[in-house]
């Protein structure tokens, strides 16, 4: 039993408790230093766990309660490479956010660091746990810190409304998950995921379908999958920049991670004979999410809100990757999360820099004002290319993994969704780049001007002239890392091996419940020619660039007859993103009902 395993959770929480006790006595610098050191330590421990987990999944039974005759008495951490990797990545992004906030926030106090460390501990626990109810506990711990962080700027009413929308929809999601856990517990009398999976075996009935739908929908609220995604844009538009980095970079992706974990450990058995039904649902939902997010993204002028919708779109792509239910696609999802998290975090950090420098994140207001920020412009541009999955970025490895998997099951059409999403989201970001950093286009673009403008309050002291290195370095570092991962040979193979471990249900059960030594076979060398994928991805990048330039040029058709239906659809889409929490919860109810009916009908038809 590994004694390292609990540390990624309990060390940040311990320092959080200490900092909170010393709240009145420690200065800002000391608390910053402590928070950063703790995050680095957590990241290093997670890294060590990752190395250990590559040999065998690492197990820790809290309280020393090892299972008896296949019945788990206590709570376990089960750390496989994907879970450990998620924890490492979490620490990295928290570190970037903390470094960035060194020069940020006027009112940043010790309590901000307490909340950040709590958030870090919660996300690590969420990634490492092997117990279903414990997963719910960390889900809520994550939420409690996140709600407060989201509403940090209490002086703005929009901020309060965004945090409330976030809090209410996510809490409803949490209770969906808990109801699903209740159903499973009533059936199996177990809370340990491995034990639940083993007890359920291959039996599929109404209870299992409902439990799956509830748990999946609940985590999809966190993951911002259509039609559960509405809170995300509101929360991102109002949250402080370092918090946005964590929300978009890792918290949302952890929602997908939870569904993946639960599916492969618990539900893959019952749904084994009905994989195609699950696939049909997930591929459809993922595609809708990707397209809706991309279209909404292109129609924004508030940069943070624009980036938030791009996250929605990319979560749709991740859902597609999950829905393929194949190991290369699963590896693709892991790599895509990595690549997307890095470039998206960098984009948010640049947005934060703009806010710091010009007190605005409005695309039109900022027209041409950042022309002299060359280095920042380069980072923003590069990150935008990463968003389009240009070859060389980690996102490209992820994309090709997912698409290879989809082709393997004869669903090559998902390529089209990737192209649309990449073109529109990267196109929107490149348009912002062109307007803000190059001064292209006009300042009063009719098309974009109709989008919602939200006044964003300052997060820093008086406008400064230079950009502190501590604010610029994290953004540049994250983009470089995305490229470095994308160019490292062998990354894909290692992640594929990890994906095979994650999908090995019986191996996982034996490892957890009998402490068996399971065989970890490295994935075979990559043989698929990627020439065609390269061409497609370069094509998407070029299309995004073309779209951005076209939208900034006088030739952008705004009133053409062919454009009208598009404009109408966009208008309708905007209308349902109403900012009204009642609408959001109504859509949530609809989503759960629809998931249930679709799955039930599909399964009954066979």
């Amino acid at each position: 039993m590994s004694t390292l395993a609990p540390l990624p959770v309990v060390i940040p929480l311990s320092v959080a408790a200490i900092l909170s006790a010393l709240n009145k006595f420690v200065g800002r610098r000391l608390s910053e230093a402590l928070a950063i050191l703790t995050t680095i330590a957590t990241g290093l421990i997670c890294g060590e766990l990752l190395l250990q987990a590559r040999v065998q999944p690492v197990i820790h039974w809290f309280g020393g309660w090892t299972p008896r005759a296949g019945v788990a008495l206590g709570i376990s951490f089960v750390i496989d490479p994907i879970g450990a990797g998620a924890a490492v990545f979490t620490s990295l992004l928290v570190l970037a956010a903390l470094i960035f906030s060194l020069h940020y926030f006027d009112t940043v106090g010790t309590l901000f660091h307490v909340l950040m460390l709590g958030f870090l501990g919660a996300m690590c626990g969420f990634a490492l746990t092997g117990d279903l109810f414990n997963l719910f506990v960390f889900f809520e711990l994550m939420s409690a810190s996140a709600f407060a962080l989201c509403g940090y700027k209490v002086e703005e009413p929009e901020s309060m409304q965004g945090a409330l929308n976030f809090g209410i929809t996510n809490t409803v999601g949490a209770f969906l998950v808990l109801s699903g856990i209740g159903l499973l517990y009533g059936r199996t009398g177990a809370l340990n995921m491995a034990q639940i999976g083993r007890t359920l075996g291959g039996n599929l009935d109404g209870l299992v379908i409902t439990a799956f739908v509830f748990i999946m929908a609940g985590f999809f609220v966190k993951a911002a999958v259509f039609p559960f995604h509405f809170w995300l844009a509101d929360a991102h538009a109002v949250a402080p920049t370092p918090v946005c980095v964590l929300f978009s970079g890792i918290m949302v992706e952890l929602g997908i991670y939870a569904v993946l974990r639960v599916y492969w450990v618990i539900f893959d058995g019952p749904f084994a004979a009905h994989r195609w039904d699950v696939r049909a649902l997930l591929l459809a939902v993922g595609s809708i999410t990707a397209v809706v997010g991309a279209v909404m993204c292109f129609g924004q002028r508030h940069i943070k809100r624009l980036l938030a919708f791009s996250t929605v779109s990319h979560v749709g792509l991740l859902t597609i990757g999950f829905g393929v239910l194949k190991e290369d696609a699963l590896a693709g999802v892991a790599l895509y999360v990595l690549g997307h998290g890095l470039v998206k975090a960098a984009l948010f950090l640049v947005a934060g820099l703009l806010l710091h420098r010009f007190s605005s994140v409005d695309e039109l207001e900022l027209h041409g004002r950042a022309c002299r920020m060359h280095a920042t412009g380069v980072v923003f541009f590069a990150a935008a290319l990463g968003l389009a999955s240009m070859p060389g970025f980690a996102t490209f490895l992820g994309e090709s993994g997912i698409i290879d998997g989809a082709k393997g099951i004869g669903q090559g059409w998902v390529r089209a969704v990737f192209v649309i999403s990449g073109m529109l989201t990267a196109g929107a970001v490149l348009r912002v780049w062109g307007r803000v950093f190059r001064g292209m286009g006009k300042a009063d673009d009719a098309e974009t001007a109709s989008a919602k403008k939200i006044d964003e309050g300052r997060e820093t002291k008086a406008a400064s002239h230079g950009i502190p290195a501590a604010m610029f370095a994290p953004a540049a570092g994250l983009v470089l890392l995305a490229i470095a991962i994308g160019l490292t040979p062998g990354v894909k193979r290692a992640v594929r091996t990890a994906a095979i471990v994650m999908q090995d249900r019986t191996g996982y059960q034996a490892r957890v419940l009998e402490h068996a030594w399971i065989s970890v076979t490295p994935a075979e060398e990559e043989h698929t020619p990627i020439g065609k994928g390269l061409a497609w991805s370069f094509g998407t990048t070029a299309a995004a660039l073309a779209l951005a330039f076209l939208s900034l040029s006088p030739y952008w058709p705004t009133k053409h007859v062919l454009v009208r239906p598009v404009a109408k659809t966009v208008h309708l889409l905007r209308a349902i993103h109403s900012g009204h929490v009642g609408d959001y919860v109504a859509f949530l109810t609809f989503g759960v009902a629809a998931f249930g009916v679709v799955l039930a009908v599909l399964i009954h038809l066979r």
Partner: protein
Amino acid sequence: MKRRGRMIFFLLSAAVFAGVYLWGLKGLPAVGHYRGPYGDVLNQVATYERHVTDIVTAVNFDYRGFDTLGEEFILFMSVVGGTVLLRRQREEEKSEHKDQALSDESPERQAPEPSDATRVLTLGLVGPLVVFGLYIVAHGQLTPGGGFQGGVILATAPLLVYLAGDLKKFKQITSHTLVEVAEAAGAGAYLAIGFAGLILGGAYLRNVAALGKTGMINSGGTIALINLATGLEVAAGFVLLLYAFLEQTLEIRLRGGK
């Protein structure tokens, strides 16, 4: 969506949602026929293994003690979050005197002075409540109750003082810094007990203290200790939340108005 449209959309979805949920519930064993095995195993072994009589407490603070640690930190983070959200802003001012604070409210909204009867009853209840709270905290391993339940009871004592007097009195008896430190100490103690288990027993939160004699107040090993830590954290946490809410609603005003 307009109200009407939202309503129709919701009602249709909710009908289907209820159908799906009921379909799932139909698969459960009939109410009253719990099949185990988790709870049954614990009911049989917990008293022997942990020398406790309240199995729920054994589950909460030993077998599934890590859940409770997470739960305690949910409370902890919410208290920190609440304090952050209700903090005073630069453009806000704080009025120290109660009369002044309420002067901008219309007369009918002003709370009347507490009557003598209220004062006597509430202040008289403070002592018994504190004793009762401590009793509940200390007997968690024996009878229903424990750190959470007792902590909440303890937190109501300062609230009674507020009811009997005013916010000033409430603040006099609750030193903010002290309560803050107490809260963090409670949460920290839970973590520290966990570390003790990791260092001495190789597993986080392993029960490494002497188990004592079943039925006695010192039984249960670390279960009793964790109960005390939790009681401290919960009591202090709720006092802090009350403090933040009362301060925000009664004292802090935006400059020149609300």
